[in-house]
Protein backbone atom coordinates (compact mmCIF):
# COMPACT_ATOMS: atom_id res chain seq x y z
CA UNK A 1 0.00 0.00 0.00
CA UNK A 2 1.22 3.46 -0.83
CA UNK A 3 1.36 6.44 1.46
CA UNK A 4 -0.45 8.74 -0.94
CA UNK A 5 -3.74 10.14 0.32
CA UNK A 6 -6.32 9.83 -2.40
CA UNK A 7 -9.45 11.74 -1.55
CA UNK A 8 -11.49 11.78 -4.75
CA UNK A 9 -14.88 10.15 -4.50
CA UNK A 10 -14.78 6.44 -4.99
CA UNK A 11 -11.04 6.20 -4.45
CA UNK A 12 -9.30 4.74 -1.45
CA UNK A 13 -8.86 7.17 1.43
CA UNK A 14 -7.51 7.05 4.91
CA UNK A 15 -10.07 5.85 7.42
CA UNK A 16 -9.45 9.14 9.17
CA UNK A 17 -10.62 11.05 6.11
CA UNK A 18 -13.66 8.82 5.89
CA UNK A 19 -14.39 9.49 9.56
CA UNK A 20 -14.24 13.27 9.25
CA UNK A 21 -16.29 13.23 6.04
CA UNK A 22 -19.01 11.01 7.46
CA UNK A 23 -19.20 13.08 10.60
CA UNK A 24 -19.82 16.25 8.59
CA UNK A 25 -22.44 14.45 6.58
CA UNK A 26 -24.20 13.32 9.76
CA UNK A 27 -23.99 16.76 11.35
CA UNK A 28 -25.70 18.33 8.33
CA UNK A 29 -28.87 16.52 9.29
CA UNK A 30 -28.53 16.13 13.03
CA UNK A 31 -27.73 19.01 15.32
CA UNK A 32 -27.24 16.61 18.21
CA UNK A 33 -24.00 15.34 16.66
CA UNK A 34 -21.26 16.87 18.80
CA UNK A 35 -17.51 16.52 18.48
CA UNK A 36 -15.23 17.00 21.47
CA UNK A 37 -11.51 17.38 20.85
CA UNK A 38 -8.40 17.79 22.99
CA UNK A 39 -6.34 19.98 20.68
CA UNK A 40 -6.84 17.09 18.28
CA UNK A 41 -8.99 18.70 15.60
CA UNK A 42 -6.00 18.83 13.26
CA UNK A 43 -4.94 15.23 13.90
CA UNK A 44 -8.59 14.22 13.60
CA UNK A 45 -9.07 16.14 10.32
CA UNK A 46 -11.88 17.97 12.09
CA UNK A 47 -10.88 21.54 11.29
CA UNK A 48 -13.55 21.85 8.57
CA UNK A 49 -16.15 20.32 10.92
CA UNK A 50 -15.38 22.94 13.55
CA UNK A 51 -15.63 25.74 11.00
CA UNK A 52 -18.89 24.48 9.56
CA UNK A 53 -20.56 23.50 12.84
CA UNK A 54 -18.99 25.70 15.52
CA UNK A 55 -21.99 25.14 17.79
CA UNK A 56 -21.44 21.39 17.66
CA UNK A 57 -17.75 21.36 18.46
CA UNK A 58 -16.27 21.56 21.95
CA UNK A 59 -12.54 22.02 22.41
CA UNK A 60 -11.18 21.21 25.85
CA UNK A 61 -7.48 21.61 25.17
CA UNK A 62 -4.93 18.93 25.96
CA UNK A 63 -6.88 17.28 28.77
CA UNK A 64 -8.06 13.80 27.88
CA UNK A 65 -9.68 12.94 31.21
CA UNK A 66 -11.76 16.06 30.95
CA UNK A 67 -12.45 15.30 27.28
CA UNK A 68 -14.16 12.04 28.18
CA UNK A 69 -15.93 13.35 31.29
CA UNK A 70 -17.31 16.33 29.40
CA UNK A 71 -18.34 14.05 26.54
CA UNK A 72 -20.23 11.84 29.01
CA UNK A 73 -22.03 14.85 30.47
CA UNK A 74 -23.06 15.97 26.99
CA UNK A 75 -24.22 12.47 26.11
CA UNK A 76 -26.37 12.31 29.25
CA UNK A 77 -28.39 15.19 27.77
CA UNK A 78 -29.05 13.35 24.51
CA UNK A 79 -26.09 14.54 22.45
CA UNK A 80 -24.47 12.04 20.08
CA UNK A 81 -20.95 12.72 21.18
CA UNK A 82 -17.75 11.78 19.38
CA UNK A 83 -14.81 12.20 21.76
CA UNK A 84 -11.79 12.33 19.49
CA UNK A 85 -8.16 12.03 20.53
CA UNK A 86 -5.13 9.90 19.70
CA UNK A 87 -5.87 6.37 20.88
CA UNK A 88 -2.68 6.23 22.95
CA UNK A 89 -3.76 9.06 25.27
CA UNK A 90 -7.47 8.46 25.15
CA UNK A 91 -7.41 4.86 26.30
CA UNK A 92 -4.64 5.20 28.86
CA UNK A 93 -4.89 8.60 30.49
CA UNK A 94 -8.69 8.69 30.32
CA UNK A 95 -9.26 4.99 30.97
CA UNK A 96 -11.02 5.63 34.26
CA UNK A 97 -13.35 8.13 32.60
CA UNK A 98 -14.12 5.61 29.85
CA UNK A 99 -14.73 2.94 32.49
CA UNK A 100 -16.87 5.01 34.86
CA UNK A 101 -18.33 8.01 33.07
CA UNK A 102 -18.99 6.26 29.76
CA UNK A 103 -19.33 2.51 30.23
CA UNK A 104 -20.52 2.17 33.85
CA UNK A 105 -22.79 5.22 33.75
CA UNK A 106 -23.98 4.09 30.30
CA UNK A 107 -23.49 7.46 28.65
CA UNK A 108 -23.46 6.77 24.95
CA UNK A 109 -20.17 8.38 24.02
CA UNK A 110 -18.46 7.35 20.83
CA UNK A 111 -14.83 7.18 21.93
CA UNK A 112 -12.72 7.69 18.82
CA UNK A 113 -9.08 6.64 19.04
CA UNK A 114 -7.25 8.18 16.10
CA UNK A 115 -3.71 7.34 14.94
CA UNK A 116 -4.17 4.01 16.67
CA UNK A 117 -1.74 1.13 17.09
CA UNK A 118 1.65 2.12 15.73
CA UNK A 119 0.38 4.81 13.34
CA UNK A 120 2.74 7.18 15.13
CA UNK A 121 5.42 4.54 14.77
CA UNK A 122 8.50 6.74 14.81
CA UNK A 123 7.30 8.76 17.78
CA UNK A 124 7.87 5.92 20.19
CA UNK A 125 5.89 4.00 22.78
CA UNK A 126 4.34 7.11 24.35
CA UNK A 127 2.41 7.45 21.10
CA UNK A 128 1.61 3.78 20.47
CA UNK A 129 -1.69 2.23 21.56
CA UNK A 130 -1.04 -1.48 21.83
CA UNK A 131 -3.02 -1.96 25.03
CA UNK A 132 -6.43 -0.57 24.12
CA UNK A 133 -8.21 -3.79 23.08
CA UNK A 134 -6.97 -5.47 26.25
CA UNK A 135 -7.95 -2.63 28.55
CA UNK A 136 -11.37 -2.08 27.02
CA UNK A 137 -12.19 -5.76 26.59
CA UNK A 138 -12.06 -6.02 30.37
CA UNK A 139 -14.56 -3.20 30.80
CA UNK A 140 -18.26 -4.00 30.75
CA UNK A 141 -20.62 -2.17 28.39
CA UNK A 142 -18.43 -0.85 25.60
CA UNK A 143 -18.21 -2.13 22.03
CA UNK A 144 -14.64 -2.27 20.72
CA UNK A 145 -14.27 -1.79 16.97
CA UNK A 146 -11.30 -1.54 14.60
CA UNK A 147 -12.61 -1.04 11.06
CA UNK A 148 -10.31 -2.25 8.29
CA UNK A 149 -11.24 -0.38 5.13
CA UNK A 150 -13.19 2.71 4.15
CA UNK A 151 -16.45 0.77 3.87
CA UNK A 152 -16.18 -0.56 7.40
CA UNK A 153 -15.18 2.84 8.75
CA UNK A 154 -18.10 4.62 7.15
CA UNK A 155 -20.54 1.99 8.35
CA UNK A 156 -19.04 1.90 11.83
CA UNK A 157 -19.29 5.68 12.27
CA UNK A 158 -22.87 5.75 11.07
CA UNK A 159 -23.80 2.83 13.29
CA UNK A 160 -22.02 4.36 16.28
CA UNK A 161 -24.03 7.56 15.83
CA UNK A 162 -27.25 5.55 16.02
CA UNK A 163 -26.46 3.18 18.83
CA UNK A 164 -27.23 3.92 22.45
CA UNK A 165 -24.38 1.78 23.72
CA UNK A 166 -20.92 3.20 24.31
CA UNK A 167 -18.53 2.43 21.46
CA UNK A 168 -14.78 2.61 21.09
CA UNK A 169 -13.60 2.97 17.51
CA UNK A 170 -9.94 3.04 16.55
CA UNK A 171 -8.22 3.48 13.24
CA UNK A 172 -5.02 4.77 11.72
CA UNK A 173 -4.05 7.28 9.11
CA UNK A 174 -2.83 5.33 6.12
CA UNK A 175 -4.78 4.94 2.90
CA UNK A 176 -6.82 1.78 3.14
CA UNK A 177 -7.62 -0.04 -0.07
CA UNK A 178 -11.01 -1.76 -0.27
CA UNK A 179 -10.91 -5.36 0.92
CA UNK A 180 -13.36 -6.40 -1.76
CA UNK A 181 -13.79 -5.17 -5.31
CA UNK A 182 -17.50 -5.82 -5.21
CA UNK A 183 -18.96 -5.34 -1.80
CA UNK A 184 -22.52 -6.00 -0.79
CA UNK A 185 -21.79 -6.89 2.82
CA UNK A 186 -24.05 -5.76 5.63
CA UNK A 187 -22.03 -4.21 8.42
CA UNK A 188 -23.04 -4.91 11.98
CA UNK A 189 -21.13 -4.57 15.22
CA UNK A 190 -20.31 -8.05 16.48
CA UNK A 191 -20.53 -9.68 13.06
CA UNK A 192 -17.23 -10.47 11.39
CA UNK A 193 -16.87 -9.92 7.67
CA UNK A 194 -15.74 -12.81 5.47
CA UNK A 195 -13.24 -11.46 2.94
CA UNK A 196 -11.92 -14.66 1.36
CA UNK A 197 -12.97 -18.28 1.73
CA UNK A 198 -10.68 -21.27 2.04
CA UNK A 199 -10.32 -24.52 3.96
CA UNK A 200 -6.67 -24.70 4.95
CA UNK A 201 -6.09 -21.77 7.25
CA UNK A 202 -8.33 -19.20 8.88
CA UNK A 203 -6.72 -15.79 9.22
CA UNK A 204 -8.64 -13.63 11.64
CA UNK A 205 -7.51 -10.03 11.65
CA UNK A 206 -8.72 -6.59 12.69
CA UNK A 207 -8.12 -3.01 11.61
CA UNK A 208 -5.20 -2.18 9.38
CA UNK A 209 -3.75 -5.68 9.52
CA UNK A 210 -6.64 -7.14 7.55
CA UNK A 211 -5.25 -5.85 4.27
CA UNK A 212 -1.87 -7.60 4.57
CA UNK A 213 -3.80 -10.70 5.68
CA UNK A 214 -5.70 -10.61 2.39
CA UNK A 215 -2.44 -10.10 0.51
CA UNK A 216 -1.02 -13.10 2.35
CA UNK A 217 -4.07 -15.17 1.41
CA UNK A 218 -3.48 -14.31 -2.26
CA UNK A 219 0.16 -15.32 -1.93
CA UNK A 220 -0.80 -18.57 -0.20
CA UNK A 221 -3.24 -19.32 -2.99
CA UNK A 222 -0.36 -19.25 -5.47
CA UNK A 223 1.27 -21.91 -3.26
CA UNK A 224 -1.85 -24.05 -3.27
CA UNK A 225 -2.98 -23.08 0.23
CA UNK A 226 -6.51 -21.78 0.59
CA UNK A 227 -7.25 -19.28 3.31
CA UNK A 228 -10.35 -17.83 4.89
CA UNK A 229 -9.73 -14.22 5.88
CA UNK A 230 -12.09 -12.64 8.39
CA UNK A 231 -12.17 -8.95 9.13
CA UNK A 232 -13.06 -9.23 12.80
CA UNK A 233 -13.70 -5.51 13.06
CA UNK A 234 -15.54 -5.91 16.34
CA UNK A 235 -13.05 -7.16 18.88
CA UNK A 236 -15.76 -7.12 21.54
CA UNK A 237 -18.35 -8.58 21.42
CA UNK A 238 -16.51 -11.22 19.43
CA UNK A 239 -18.38 -12.98 16.64
CA UNK A 240 -17.98 -16.40 18.20
CA UNK A 241 -20.53 -17.97 15.86
CA UNK A 242 -18.39 -17.11 12.85
CA UNK A 243 -15.21 -18.07 14.70
CA UNK A 244 -16.74 -21.43 15.52
CA UNK A 245 -17.59 -22.13 11.88
CA UNK A 246 -14.24 -21.15 10.37
CA UNK A 247 -12.23 -22.78 13.16
CA UNK A 248 -13.99 -26.08 12.58
CA UNK A 249 -13.68 -25.79 8.82
CA UNK A 250 -9.99 -24.89 8.64
CA UNK A 251 -6.94 -26.90 9.67
CA UNK A 252 -5.23 -24.01 11.47
CA UNK A 253 -6.04 -20.60 12.85
CA UNK A 254 -3.90 -17.48 12.71
CA UNK A 255 -4.86 -14.17 14.28
CA UNK A 256 -3.33 -10.85 13.28
CA UNK A 257 -3.64 -7.51 15.04
CA UNK A 258 -1.94 -4.16 15.50
CA UNK A 259 -1.89 -4.64 19.25
CA UNK A 260 0.09 -6.38 21.93
CA UNK A 261 -0.12 -10.14 21.65
CA UNK A 262 -1.48 -9.97 25.18
CA UNK A 263 -5.17 -9.38 25.79
CA UNK A 264 -6.29 -8.54 22.28
CA UNK A 265 -8.09 -10.21 19.40
CA UNK A 266 -5.84 -13.27 19.42
CA UNK A 267 -6.33 -14.06 23.07
CA UNK A 268 -10.06 -13.42 22.72
CA UNK A 269 -10.18 -16.06 19.98
CA UNK A 270 -7.93 -18.44 21.90
CA UNK A 271 -10.12 -18.17 24.97
CA UNK A 272 -13.24 -19.02 23.00
CA UNK A 273 -11.63 -21.91 21.12
CA UNK A 274 -10.05 -23.53 24.17
CA UNK A 275 -13.18 -23.25 26.29
CA UNK A 276 -15.20 -24.79 23.49
CA UNK A 277 -12.77 -27.69 22.97
CA UNK A 278 -11.74 -26.61 19.47
CA UNK A 279 -8.10 -27.64 19.38
CA UNK A 280 -6.31 -26.59 16.21
CA UNK A 281 -2.80 -25.30 15.45
CA UNK A 282 -3.07 -21.68 16.54
CA UNK A 283 -0.86 -18.60 16.47
CA UNK A 284 -1.31 -15.01 17.60
CA UNK A 285 0.50 -12.43 15.49
CA UNK A 286 0.84 -8.92 16.88
CA UNK A 287 3.36 -6.78 18.67
CA UNK A 288 5.37 -8.89 21.12
CA UNK A 289 5.88 -7.93 24.73
CA UNK A 290 9.11 -6.04 24.27
CA UNK A 291 10.41 -2.51 23.90
CA UNK A 292 8.65 -1.81 20.61
CA UNK A 293 10.87 -1.12 17.64
CA UNK A 294 10.31 2.31 16.07
CA UNK A 295 9.95 3.43 12.47
CA UNK A 296 7.04 3.97 10.14
CA UNK A 297 3.91 1.89 10.69
CA UNK A 298 4.87 -0.19 7.65
CA UNK A 299 8.40 -0.73 8.94
CA UNK A 300 7.07 -1.85 12.30
CA UNK A 301 4.58 -4.18 10.58
CA UNK A 302 7.40 -5.63 8.48
CA UNK A 303 9.65 -5.98 11.53
CA UNK A 304 7.09 -8.04 13.41
CA UNK A 305 5.88 -9.94 10.37
CA UNK A 306 2.50 -8.25 10.12
CA UNK A 307 2.94 -8.22 6.37
CA UNK A 308 2.04 -10.27 3.34
CA UNK A 309 5.28 -12.21 3.65
CA UNK A 310 5.22 -12.62 7.43
CA UNK A 311 1.60 -13.71 7.63
CA UNK A 312 1.98 -16.16 4.75
CA UNK A 313 5.07 -17.67 6.39
CA UNK A 314 3.31 -18.14 9.72
CA UNK A 315 0.31 -19.72 8.00
CA UNK A 316 2.60 -22.19 6.25
CA UNK A 317 4.35 -23.03 9.50
CA UNK A 318 1.04 -23.83 11.17
CA UNK A 319 -0.06 -26.26 8.47
Amino acid at each position, binding site marked *: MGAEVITEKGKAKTNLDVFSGVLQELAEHDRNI*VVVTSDSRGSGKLGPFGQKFP*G*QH*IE*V*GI*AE*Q*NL*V*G*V*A*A*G*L*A*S*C*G*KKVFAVSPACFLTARAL*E*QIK*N*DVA*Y*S*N*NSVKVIGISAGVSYGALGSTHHSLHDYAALRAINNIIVVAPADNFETEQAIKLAAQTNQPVYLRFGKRVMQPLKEINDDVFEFGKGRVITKGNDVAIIAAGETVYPAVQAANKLKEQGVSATVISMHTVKPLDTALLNIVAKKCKAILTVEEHSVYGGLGEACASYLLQNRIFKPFKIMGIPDEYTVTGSQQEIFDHYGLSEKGIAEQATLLL
Partner: protein
Amino acid sequence: MTTKQLQKKSIQYRKNILKYIFHANAGHTGGSLSCIDILNVLYNHVLNVSPENFTSPDRDRYIQSKGHSVEALFVVLADKGFFPESDLSTLCKYRSHYIGHPTRKVKGVEQNTGALGHGLPLSVGTALAAKMDKKDFRVFTLLGDGELPEGSNWEAALTASHYKLDNLCAIIDHNKLQITGTTAEVCNTNPIDKKFENFGWAVRHVDGHDLDALKKTFAEMPFEKGKPSLIIAHTVKGKGVSYMENVIKWHHGVPSEKQLEEAMSELNNVMVTIPDDF
Protein backbone atom coordinates in the same frame (compact mmCIF):
# COMPACT_ATOMS: atom_id res chain seq x y z
CA MET B 1 -39.95 25.77 52.97
CA THR B 2 -39.18 27.81 56.06
CA THR B 3 -35.82 27.69 57.73
CA LYS B 4 -37.30 25.97 60.77
CA GLN B 5 -38.78 23.28 58.58
CA LEU B 6 -35.40 22.85 56.91
CA GLN B 7 -33.71 22.67 60.32
CA LYS B 8 -36.01 19.84 61.32
CA LYS B 9 -35.32 18.07 58.07
CA SER B 10 -31.57 18.34 58.63
CA ILE B 11 -31.93 16.66 62.00
CA GLN B 12 -34.18 13.94 60.62
CA TYR B 13 -31.76 13.39 57.73
CA ARG B 14 -28.88 13.05 60.19
CA LYS B 15 -30.82 10.50 62.20
CA ASN B 16 -31.61 8.54 59.04
CA ILE B 17 -28.00 8.61 57.86
CA LEU B 18 -26.89 7.14 61.18
CA LYS B 19 -29.73 4.63 61.27
CA TYR B 20 -28.99 3.19 57.86
CA ILE B 21 -25.21 3.24 58.25
CA PHE B 22 -25.65 1.33 61.52
CA HIS B 23 -27.98 -1.13 59.83
CA ALA B 24 -25.59 -1.63 56.90
CA ASN B 25 -22.58 -1.73 59.19
CA ALA B 26 -20.87 0.41 56.55
CA GLY B 27 -20.88 3.95 55.24
CA HIS B 28 -19.11 7.27 55.10
CA THR B 29 -20.52 8.81 58.23
CA GLY B 30 -18.47 11.96 58.77
CA GLY B 31 -18.73 13.29 55.21
CA SER B 32 -22.45 12.52 54.95
CA LEU B 33 -23.03 14.55 58.12
CA SER B 34 -20.90 17.43 56.83
CA CYS B 35 -22.73 17.78 53.51
CA ILE B 36 -26.30 17.03 54.56
CA ASP B 37 -27.31 20.65 55.16
CA ILE B 38 -26.12 21.53 51.66
CA LEU B 39 -28.18 18.70 50.17
CA ASN B 40 -31.15 19.70 52.29
CA VAL B 41 -31.14 23.24 50.91
CA LEU B 42 -30.47 22.06 47.36
CA TYR B 43 -33.29 19.52 47.20
CA ASN B 44 -35.83 21.42 49.30
CA HIS B 45 -35.15 24.95 48.18
CA VAL B 46 -32.99 25.23 45.05
CA LEU B 47 -33.26 22.38 42.59
CA ASN B 48 -36.07 22.05 40.10
CA VAL B 49 -36.03 18.28 40.33
CA SER B 50 -38.60 15.83 41.63
CA PRO B 51 -39.67 12.23 41.01
CA GLU B 52 -42.29 13.61 38.62
CA ASN B 53 -39.94 15.63 36.42
CA PHE B 54 -36.85 13.44 36.72
CA THR B 55 -36.98 12.37 33.07
CA SER B 56 -37.64 15.88 31.82
CA PRO B 57 -34.73 17.33 29.82
CA ASP B 58 -35.43 20.66 31.53
CA ARG B 59 -34.84 19.51 35.11
CA ASP B 60 -31.94 20.88 37.10
CA ARG B 61 -29.09 18.42 37.50
CA TYR B 62 -27.28 17.48 40.70
CA ILE B 63 -24.16 15.34 40.34
CA GLN B 64 -22.44 14.16 43.49
CA SER B 65 -18.74 14.07 42.85
CA LYS B 66 -17.96 13.02 46.42
CA GLY B 67 -19.85 9.82 45.81
CA HIS B 68 -18.80 8.19 49.05
CA SER B 69 -21.21 10.43 50.97
CA VAL B 70 -24.00 8.56 49.25
CA GLU B 71 -25.95 8.00 52.47
CA ALA B 72 -26.69 11.73 52.62
CA LEU B 73 -27.96 11.66 49.04
CA PHE B 74 -30.05 8.53 49.56
CA VAL B 75 -31.88 9.81 52.64
CA VAL B 76 -32.72 13.07 50.88
CA LEU B 77 -33.91 11.30 47.72
CA ALA B 78 -36.07 8.99 49.84
CA ASP B 79 -37.56 11.99 51.63
CA LYS B 80 -38.31 13.61 48.26
CA GLY B 81 -40.23 10.50 47.24
CA PHE B 82 -37.87 9.07 44.64
CA PHE B 83 -38.17 5.68 46.37
CA PRO B 84 -39.58 4.33 49.63
CA GLU B 85 -37.32 5.04 52.58
CA SER B 86 -37.65 1.41 53.62
CA ASP B 87 -35.53 0.51 50.57
CA LEU B 88 -32.55 1.89 52.48
CA SER B 89 -32.69 -1.07 54.84
CA THR B 90 -30.95 -2.93 51.97
CA LEU B 91 -28.04 -0.45 51.93
CA CYS B 92 -24.83 -2.29 51.02
CA LYS B 93 -26.59 -5.66 51.21
CA TYR B 94 -26.08 -8.39 48.63
CA ARG B 95 -27.45 -7.33 45.21
CA SER B 96 -29.04 -4.15 46.55
CA HIS B 97 -29.07 -1.14 44.22
CA TYR B 98 -28.38 0.98 47.27
CA ILE B 99 -24.62 0.50 47.22
CA GLY B 100 -21.86 2.55 48.79
CA HIS B 101 -21.73 5.06 45.94
CA PRO B 102 -24.38 6.69 43.73
CA THR B 103 -25.64 4.60 40.83
CA ARG B 104 -28.30 5.34 38.25
CA LYS B 105 -30.09 2.18 39.25
CA VAL B 106 -31.47 4.32 42.06
CA LYS B 107 -34.09 6.78 40.86
CA GLY B 108 -32.94 10.34 41.34
CA VAL B 109 -29.25 9.65 40.77
CA GLU B 110 -27.89 11.42 37.68
CA GLN B 111 -24.50 9.75 37.27
CA ASN B 112 -22.58 6.79 38.63
CA THR B 113 -19.85 8.32 40.73
CA GLY B 114 -17.47 7.11 43.38
CA ALA B 115 -14.04 7.54 41.85
CA LEU B 116 -13.03 11.08 42.70
CA GLY B 117 -12.49 13.94 40.29
CA HIS B 118 -15.30 12.88 37.97
CA GLY B 119 -18.23 15.08 38.99
CA LEU B 120 -16.91 18.36 37.68
CA PRO B 121 -16.08 17.20 34.11
CA LEU B 122 -19.48 15.46 33.92
CA SER B 123 -21.16 18.63 35.15
CA VAL B 124 -19.27 20.77 32.67
CA GLY B 125 -20.48 18.55 29.81
CA THR B 126 -24.03 18.74 31.15
CA ALA B 127 -23.90 22.53 31.48
CA LEU B 128 -22.48 22.77 27.94
CA ALA B 129 -25.44 20.76 26.64
CA ALA B 130 -27.81 23.22 28.33
CA LYS B 131 -26.04 26.15 26.66
CA MET B 132 -26.08 24.41 23.27
CA ASP B 133 -29.80 23.76 23.49
CA LYS B 134 -30.51 27.18 25.04
CA LYS B 135 -32.14 25.52 28.01
CA ASP B 136 -32.47 27.21 31.38
CA PHE B 137 -31.68 24.29 33.63
CA ARG B 138 -28.73 24.58 35.99
CA VAL B 139 -26.11 22.08 37.02
CA PHE B 140 -24.87 21.59 40.57
CA THR B 141 -22.07 19.36 41.70
CA LEU B 142 -20.77 18.64 45.19
CA LEU B 143 -17.05 18.05 45.62
CA GLY B 144 -15.15 16.99 48.69
CA ASP B 145 -12.19 19.14 49.62
CA GLY B 146 -10.05 16.00 49.75
CA GLU B 147 -10.65 15.30 46.06
CA LEU B 148 -9.33 18.66 44.88
CA PRO B 149 -5.83 17.33 44.09
CA GLU B 150 -7.37 15.19 41.30
CA GLY B 151 -6.11 16.86 38.13
CA SER B 152 -9.35 16.31 36.24
CA ASN B 153 -11.01 18.91 38.50
CA TRP B 154 -8.64 21.57 37.28
CA GLU B 155 -8.97 20.51 33.66
CA ALA B 156 -12.72 20.86 33.99
CA ALA B 157 -12.41 24.14 35.88
CA LEU B 158 -10.60 25.56 32.86
CA THR B 159 -13.24 24.36 30.41
CA ALA B 160 -16.04 25.75 32.60
CA SER B 161 -14.62 29.25 32.53
CA HIS B 162 -13.50 29.01 28.89
CA TYR B 163 -17.11 28.34 27.90
CA LYS B 164 -18.48 30.87 30.42
CA LEU B 165 -20.70 28.30 32.09
CA ASP B 166 -22.67 30.52 34.45
CA ASN B 167 -25.32 27.81 34.62
CA LEU B 168 -22.88 25.66 36.59
CA CYS B 169 -22.36 25.72 40.34
CA ALA B 170 -19.77 23.63 42.14
CA ILE B 171 -19.98 23.34 45.91
CA ILE B 172 -16.99 22.22 47.93
CA ASP B 173 -17.86 20.48 51.17
CA HIS B 174 -14.90 22.01 52.95
CA ASN B 175 -14.76 19.97 56.14
CA LYS B 176 -10.95 20.11 56.07
CA LEU B 177 -10.46 16.43 56.90
CA GLN B 178 -9.78 13.38 54.78
CA ILE B 179 -9.00 9.77 55.55
CA THR B 180 -5.33 10.33 56.35
CA GLY B 181 -5.49 13.64 58.18
CA THR B 182 -6.30 17.26 57.57
CA THR B 183 -6.47 18.36 53.95
CA ALA B 184 -3.78 20.91 54.76
CA GLU B 185 -1.45 18.13 55.93
CA VAL B 186 -2.19 15.67 53.13
CA CYS B 187 -1.99 18.08 50.21
CA ASN B 188 -2.51 21.72 50.96
CA THR B 189 -4.88 23.12 48.37
CA ASN B 190 -5.28 26.49 50.08
CA PRO B 191 -6.13 29.11 49.08
CA ILE B 192 -8.96 27.36 47.22
CA ASP B 193 -10.79 30.60 46.49
CA LYS B 194 -7.80 32.29 44.86
CA LYS B 195 -7.05 29.22 42.79
CA PHE B 196 -10.57 29.03 41.37
CA GLU B 197 -10.71 32.79 40.89
CA ASN B 198 -7.53 32.54 38.86
CA PHE B 199 -9.18 29.78 36.86
CA GLY B 200 -11.96 32.21 35.98
CA TRP B 201 -14.61 31.29 38.53
CA ALA B 202 -16.71 33.53 40.78
CA VAL B 203 -16.28 32.30 44.35
CA ARG B 204 -18.30 32.68 47.57
CA HIS B 205 -17.67 31.36 51.05
CA VAL B 206 -20.54 30.21 53.22
CA ASP B 207 -21.11 28.44 56.51
CA GLY B 208 -22.21 25.07 55.15
CA HIS B 209 -24.44 24.43 58.16
CA ASP B 210 -26.21 27.82 58.12
CA LEU B 211 -29.37 27.07 56.19
CA ASP B 212 -30.33 30.71 55.70
CA ALA B 213 -26.86 31.57 54.46
CA LEU B 214 -26.94 28.63 52.06
CA LYS B 215 -30.34 29.71 50.72
CA LYS B 216 -29.12 33.24 50.23
CA THR B 217 -25.91 32.14 48.51
CA PHE B 218 -27.65 29.79 46.09
CA ALA B 219 -30.16 32.53 45.28
CA GLU B 220 -27.35 34.76 44.09
CA MET B 221 -26.12 32.29 41.50
CA PRO B 222 -24.60 33.08 39.06
CA PHE B 223 -22.34 35.18 41.21
CA GLU B 224 -21.05 36.82 38.07
CA LYS B 225 -22.58 36.69 34.63
CA GLY B 226 -20.44 34.65 32.26
CA LYS B 227 -18.57 32.82 35.02
CA PRO B 228 -19.12 29.46 36.69
CA SER B 229 -19.95 29.74 40.40
CA LEU B 230 -18.06 28.09 43.23
CA ILE B 231 -19.38 27.86 46.77
CA ILE B 232 -16.82 26.97 49.38
CA ALA B 233 -19.06 25.61 52.13
CA HIS B 234 -17.21 25.56 55.44
CA THR B 235 -18.43 22.48 57.25
CA VAL B 236 -17.60 20.22 60.15
CA LYS B 237 -17.00 16.56 59.49
CA GLY B 238 -19.40 14.54 61.63
CA LYS B 239 -21.53 17.65 62.26
CA GLY B 240 -24.39 17.18 64.71
CA VAL B 241 -22.93 14.32 66.73
CA SER B 242 -20.50 15.72 69.31
CA TYR B 243 -18.24 12.72 69.57
CA MET B 244 -17.90 12.50 65.77
CA GLU B 245 -17.22 16.14 65.02
CA ASN B 246 -13.76 16.74 63.59
CA VAL B 247 -12.62 13.21 64.49
CA ILE B 248 -10.94 11.50 61.54
CA LYS B 249 -11.93 7.95 62.45
CA TRP B 250 -15.55 8.81 61.66
CA HIS B 251 -14.64 9.23 57.99
CA HIS B 252 -16.10 5.78 57.55
CA GLY B 253 -16.60 4.76 61.14
CA VAL B 254 -19.78 2.92 62.03
CA PRO B 255 -21.31 3.61 65.45
CA SER B 256 -21.94 0.83 67.94
CA GLU B 257 -25.47 0.38 69.26
CA LYS B 258 -24.61 2.43 72.34
CA GLN B 259 -22.98 5.15 70.26
CA LEU B 260 -25.99 5.22 67.95
CA GLU B 261 -28.33 5.70 70.94
CA GLU B 262 -26.15 8.51 72.20
CA ALA B 263 -26.15 10.21 68.80
CA MET B 264 -29.90 9.84 68.37
CA SER B 265 -30.48 11.23 71.84
CA GLU B 266 -28.34 14.26 71.06
CA LEU B 267 -30.17 14.88 67.79
CA ASN B 268 -33.58 14.40 69.45
CA ASN B 269 -32.63 16.94 72.09
CA VAL B 270 -31.85 19.48 69.38
CA MET B 271 -35.07 18.66 67.55
CA VAL B 272 -37.26 19.57 70.54
CA THR B 273 -35.64 22.99 70.78
CA ILE B 274 -36.96 23.96 67.32
CA PRO B 275 -40.49 25.35 67.67
CA ASP B 276 -43.11 24.42 65.13
CA ASP B 277 -43.97 26.97 62.49
CA PHE B 278 -47.45 28.31 62.21
